[in-house]
């Protein structure tokens, strides 16, 4: 095994921070320009590594938010107050800084047009990040695969990519539904509760249509959603999941 590692096909590289975009009060997108980028597939992620002056290193995974067709690499990071890595990425990083990363990695939580659909995307909080890449890819290739995104956030202010998602929803093939679990604005027409079996039953394609499902978000959210989908009769082998870790939202 050690010998294989020495082949080092996956190498760390320093990417230049080109631009930072405030998405919500707690979430920021980082546009990067890695010197050697082989291209990626929608849904893949990168590993990011921070090194302190004393040599201490911390490594985390971040999904790629940009589509393969975009000419840049974008990550979107939610700040966790007591976190080791995310506050640095979401608050301290500045344009012109360099960020060490390796990737793209992952091949399971990936959607490309050839996989077809109908497609059901279910996001909890920052779990929307890789699903955004899939939606942007869908738009870039003008796919006719029908897509539904069900996105759970605490409040409308916490919906990441809000305006962009609203614009995408104008496409005939794309149907986007929000559920706001803590706070709903006055006159809110969307859902206002946590995702459960009934809500999934209402929003998802019938199991008989064999939808391809991608679920991403906090671990508890992903497990509850995937279990409910299986209970509703969806094929476990057509439900792909990606867990981001312990939950807030």
């Amino acid at each position, binding site marked *: 095994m050690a010998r294989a590692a020495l082949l080092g*096909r996956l190498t760390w590289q320093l990417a230049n921070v080109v631009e930072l975009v405030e998405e919500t009060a707690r979430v920021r997108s980082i546009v990067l320009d890695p010197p050697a980028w082989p291209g990626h597939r929608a849904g893949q992620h990168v590993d990011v590594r921070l090194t302190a002056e004393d040599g201490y290193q911390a490594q985390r995974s971040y999904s790629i938010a940009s589509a393969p067709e975009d000419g840049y690499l974008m990550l979107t990071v939610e700040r966790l107050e007591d976190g080791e890595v995310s506050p640095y990425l979401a608050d301290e990083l500045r344009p012109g800084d360099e960020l060490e990363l390796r*990737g793209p990695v992952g091949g399971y939580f990936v959607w490309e047009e050839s996989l077809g659909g109908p497609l059901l995307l279910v996001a909890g909080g920052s779990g929307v990040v890789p699903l955004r890449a899939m939606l942007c890819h869908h738009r870039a290739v003008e796919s006719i695969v029908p897509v539904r995104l069900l996105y759970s956030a605490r409040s409308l202010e916490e919906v990441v990519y809000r305006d962009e998602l609203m614009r995408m929803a104008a496409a005939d093939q794309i149907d986007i539904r929000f559920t706001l679990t803590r706070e709903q604005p006055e006159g809110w027409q969307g859902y206002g509760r946590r995702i459960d079996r009934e809500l999934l039953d209402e929003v998802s394609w019938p199991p008989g249509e064999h939808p391809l499902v991608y679920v991403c978000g906090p671990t508890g959210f992903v497990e509850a959603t995937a279990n409910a989908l299986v209970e509703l009769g969806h094929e476990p082998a057509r439900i792909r999941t990606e867990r981001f870790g312990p939950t807030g939202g």
Partner: protein
Amino acid sequence: MNALDGNAIAGSLLDVFGAEMTTATGVCGSCGTSAPVAEFEVYLRAPGAVARCRSCRSVLMVLVTIRGLTCVDLRGLAALGLAPTSGG
């Protein structure tokens, strides 16, 4: 709910095997359940990670990274198929 899944170790596995491994199918040596590596239950714990079977919780893989070099112990797996899983 601290567990992640096999997606979280995609980078380390690619580093070691020189190939994308999360779509590979692993067969649990204890209960025989087969699943894509991406669906394994994974706990990240410095300096590495532990992957368990979702059905019987047996340890399937142990990863250790020291000074940038990752080693993987596959002793809990009866088989690890390099061919991608079909359909999911």
